[in-house]
């Protein structure tokens, strides 16, 4: 019970930190960006097929907006505390390190998914798909799965190299998610991007229309398996980050 209280305290406090005016403005700009891109595309060609619009929304919201949102909310989990001079005060509490990690994870997922869902709503309106409940609900799930998976993924560089977490996370995103994730090999099974892609293809019914060489880039197992795989992957990465953080030490000179 004490652990849950600590985690909820951190989550609440991190959300309050995120509710700063500058952060809100940045989030709103980020949320409006996909809709602006879609409007610009439609202005050039208003007769684009629904499939292309769906692909565009997929690339912009569950991928780009979620990724960027998590980079600024999850990556600084340790670095921010060190810079603010709060690391020692938080981690001297019983279970403080674990609370900090899991609480920040919850806040990052909550904040980013809220921004991404707002962005999704704007993007669907811009694409003229706002009345298609099936597409909207599909993207809601994709956004949530993306946020949970990527937040846990970014937790690892955040605790391993706190002062270079942003750079390391961008590198991880490209190497793991967009390089390994597109390799037709076992390695892509442990990426979030494979699961998201597979869910998109299955829910859009594109499986039969895919050329054989592209079939290698998706997983044909049912959607619940894809979602469970992301949750399992996130749990493992979060646990690993928690173990690493529990053993991290920062010399006094590195603090503040």
């Amino acid at each position, binding site marked *: 019970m004490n652990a849950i209280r600590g985690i909820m*305290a951190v989550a609440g406090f991190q959300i309050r930190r995120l509710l700063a005016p500058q952060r809100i403005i940045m989030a709103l700009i980020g949320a409006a960006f996909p809709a602006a891109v879609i409007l610009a595309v439609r202005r050039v060609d208003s007769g684009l097929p629904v499939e292309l619009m769906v692909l565009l929304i997929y690339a912009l919201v569950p991928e780009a907006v979620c990724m960027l949102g998590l980079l600024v909310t999850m990556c600084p989990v340790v670095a921010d505390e060190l810079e603010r001079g709060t690391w020692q005060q938080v981690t*001297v509490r019983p279970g403080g390190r674990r609370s900090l990690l899991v609480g920040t994870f919850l806040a990052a997922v909550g904040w980013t998914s809220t921004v991404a869902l707002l962005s999704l709503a704007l993007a669907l309106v811009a694409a003229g798909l706002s009345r298609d409940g099936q597409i909207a609900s599909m993207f809601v799930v994709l956004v949530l799965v993306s946020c949970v998976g990527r937040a846990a993924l970014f937790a690892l560089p955040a605790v391993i190299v706190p002062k270079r977490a942003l750079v390391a996370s961008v590198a991880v995103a490209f190497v793991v998610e967009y390089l390994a994730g597109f390799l037709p090999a076992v390695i892509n099974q442990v990426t979030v991007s494979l699961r998201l892609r597979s869910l998109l293809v299955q829910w859009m019914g594109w499986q039969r229309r895919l050329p054989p060489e592209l079939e290698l880039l998706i997983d044909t197992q049912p959607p619940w398996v894809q979602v469970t795989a992301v949750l399992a992957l996130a749990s493992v990465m979060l646990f690993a980050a928690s173990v690493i953080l529990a053993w991290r030490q920062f010399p006094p000179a590195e603090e503040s």
Partner: protein
Amino acid sequence: MIALERATKLYGTVIGVNDLTVVLGPGAHGLLGPNGAGKTTLLGLVTGQLRPTMGSVRIFGEKPFGNARVLARIGYCPAADLLERRATPREWVSYLVRLNGIIAPAARQAAAMALDRVGLGEAADRPLMTLSKGMRQRTKLAGAIAHDPDLLVLDEPFVGLDPVARHDLVVLVREWAVHRSLLVASHLLHEIEALDAGLAVILGGRLVASGDAEEIHALVDSMPAEIRLDADRPRRLAEIACGSGLADSIRFDGPTGLSIGTRRPRELAALLGQAAVGETILISTLSAVDRSLEGVFDRLVQLHRGIGSGSGGVRPAAPAGLASEKVP
């Protein structure tokens, strides 16, 4: 309560704490040392922020690193300034108390009491970025005491405080130490003296002396003191000092400077005065080691660094043997 057994903390090739053995019982203790002496590293070991590279650290009989039972009984006010911006002291302290597993309403109540106690009740709802450094310092202290710990650890707690706030804090901390335990690190001796705390002097990551202020004085009295002077014939004065048997060491500082190490500074000073009159030697300046606690502290620092009476002749006893003491 606090027991370090040959504790060493290395940061790569840099030594933070060096083979330190000390047992501190319940009560108030001051940890004294210049900047970079290893005080914060030692506090890091005590508060479970750091693991010893070698040796062991026990707080309340248990290893503190990652130990929730021990951490729940510690309140820590670090030296680093609190740069949290938008939160108010009330929010910040409530947050810290909640991290101890206390439910939100009780945490708010505990925070309010702690903020009142440090004299920050009226500013409790102002954003931290609008507060002075002294007020932020008091906020940190409130965060350290709000959950009612058994051991309060303060790292340079008086930095940034005005004299009134400093006095209030001294009163508060002394009251605290009546019933609970306290460990205060500072590089300023008068701060520790004001707390009536036992003293442990740390230099270069080593404990070089411990005891109360009088014991530290007595300790230094037993070591060679230093008399420094400027005269027109320093070599003649050195000859007289050596001939008297009062000098333990002699060092010439330039054409007119002379430093003499001695265990009997009063007698030596009198002798030098007589010689100056009898042989018409012009002594332009003469100074002895400072007998205040600040002077004692400076003396220990000098001895540890091998500066002073030992450099030109007889070396003083190395103070390292003073370590490993039990402070009551």
